[in-house]
């Protein structure tokens, strides 16, 4: 029963990672469309949207952080495996657990720092510098949200390691 519940939680985390990555895809498509429109408006009508460059920067934040959890799920984050590949499976397992544990510490620090930034911008009422002034905490919020999913995914990988590989 407990095992069933854990597997359900793990599959929910995997789904959350995928949905976050789909959010990153939306950001990628919006970035493409917005910058293309900006170029066409400027070249053919001599006018600028004045928000394209700033918004593209925010979309990049979304791509970077919302895509991170799913990239971890499919093991696409880069590792140097020159020594790791020479280890036996038991040693690899220990190294993996240590790596996941350190990753959780690092990502939690990033989560804490970026959440503080969001809270500070919200409290001070900072606005973005573009023409359409939106509260700055909104694009900044993408970072802790993405990191939250990322931490969940690393936790789920760590949990799977403790349960003899990826059985769950």
């Amino acid at each position, binding site marked *: 029963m407990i095992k069933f519940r854990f597997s359900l939680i793990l599959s929910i985390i995997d789904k959350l990672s995928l949905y976050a990555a789909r959010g990153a895809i939306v950001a990628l498509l919006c970035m493409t469309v917005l910058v293309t429109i900006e*170029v066409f408006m400027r070249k053919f009508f001599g006018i600028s949207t004045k928000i394209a460059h700033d918004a593209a920067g925010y979309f990049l934040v979304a791509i970077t952080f919302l895509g991170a959890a799913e990239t971890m799920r499919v093991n696409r984050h*880069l590792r140097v495996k020159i020594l790791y590949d020479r280890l036996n499976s038991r040693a690899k397992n220990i190294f993996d657990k240590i790596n996941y544990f350190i990753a959780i510490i690092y990502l939690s620090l990033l989560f804490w720092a970026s959440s503080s930034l969001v809270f500070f911008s919200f409290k001070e009422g900072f606005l973005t510098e573009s023409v359409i002034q939106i509260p700055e905490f909104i*694009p900044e919020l993408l970072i802790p949200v993405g990191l939250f999913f990322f931490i969940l995914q690393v936790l789920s990988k760590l949990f799977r390691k403790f349960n003899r590989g990826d059985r769950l």
Partner: protein
Amino acid sequence: MSIPAIITLTIVLLFSLLLGGMWVFNALGIAGVLGIFLLGTDLGGAISYQVWGSSNNFILTAIPLFIFMGEIMLRSGISDRLYSGVSKWVGSFPGGLIHTNVVACALFAAISGSSVATAASIGTVAIPDQEARGYDKKLILGSIVASGTLGILIPPSIIMILYGSWMEVSIARLFAAGIIPGIMISLFFMLFVVIKCLRQPKLAPRLKPSSLKEKLFSLKEIWPGLLIITFIMVAIFGGLMTPSETAAVSVALVLLLATLLGSFSWRLLYKCAINTIYTSTMILIIYVSAKILVMSLMYLGVISLIPQFVDSLGLSPIFVLLVIYLIYLILGCFFDGTSLLLITLPIVQPLIANIGVDLVWFGVVVTILIELGMITPPVGLNLYVITGISDSSLSETIKGVFPFFLILLACLGLFTICPQLVTWFPDLLFGG
């Protein structure tokens, strides 16, 4: 804890974690965080400033956009068309289809910003075809692995975007600087193949020369690729658009082409987009973490200590440069291109500024050094990609690529002796 002890601990921790199989972003970040923490600086403020500032960057938007464009070109069958079209033009030279590998890789490099994507896309089409024709396997593998590296030298180049963003150098200038070296390296590769195959014609039988009609007909296969290449070059070098804008419009153009060629589908778009997210996230998270590390090294005074230390040794600039080359060649054996660039730039940047070399020229040199790393065992990514595709042994691929490695090394020497070969074209386009 004393500053030298913190510096030592940070560097030892960084390399221990990297060699222990830690994700590169994590190793860079945790080493940086530790340095800032031990110094007693405001950890939260320092991290949040770097995370937000380095990820919210318009220049870097070119990375996912160019990757997206390359993915669509690859999955919509453009590399297959490019290969078969080019073979009609160069297949009758001594060395036959091996030249197609070099030219198709160089052309695909002008569309894709990645070496691995270039080698994989051309390799998938070329290897089975050339093996079936009885071509020498080592020559096939070596030519594709080495020519694939042109992906990061011939614009657009992800490595150059990262370098330009980090060093605050014009990306358009860097792209322009990569063209002449890229063409020269391609020609040297082809010259080597001609000489080798004139001496041993059995290695790569020539194709029957194509008629003019066949050649013209082959343009039907090549034109989508040529159109995109022309658009990118004109837009960036003509000063019409920034590299990021060019990348966005190129994506729109490629989607239009894919629709016209009948290869567009929503499934294809999704596959291309999700692969773009994987690659871009992987690169950008490393970039953000490298920025945290560099802030730590700055607080620790390492950035200003390095030039002072090198000055105290009284070394000549060329000697310093050769030491930098050597370090890149050694580290290139262990790290992939993106990691190598972002791990070394914080240290190399003050050194380069101190000896007063041209940053655009150095960008090209670093790219060639990274190219060499990509074909050097044990971590040369291109070696593994092509070995995987060809189902051959790694040692066979290494033997095949060795002469091309020497050519690249010789080119590096040539561009060091004659830096004008690199800087002439960007100076011509944008002024000295």
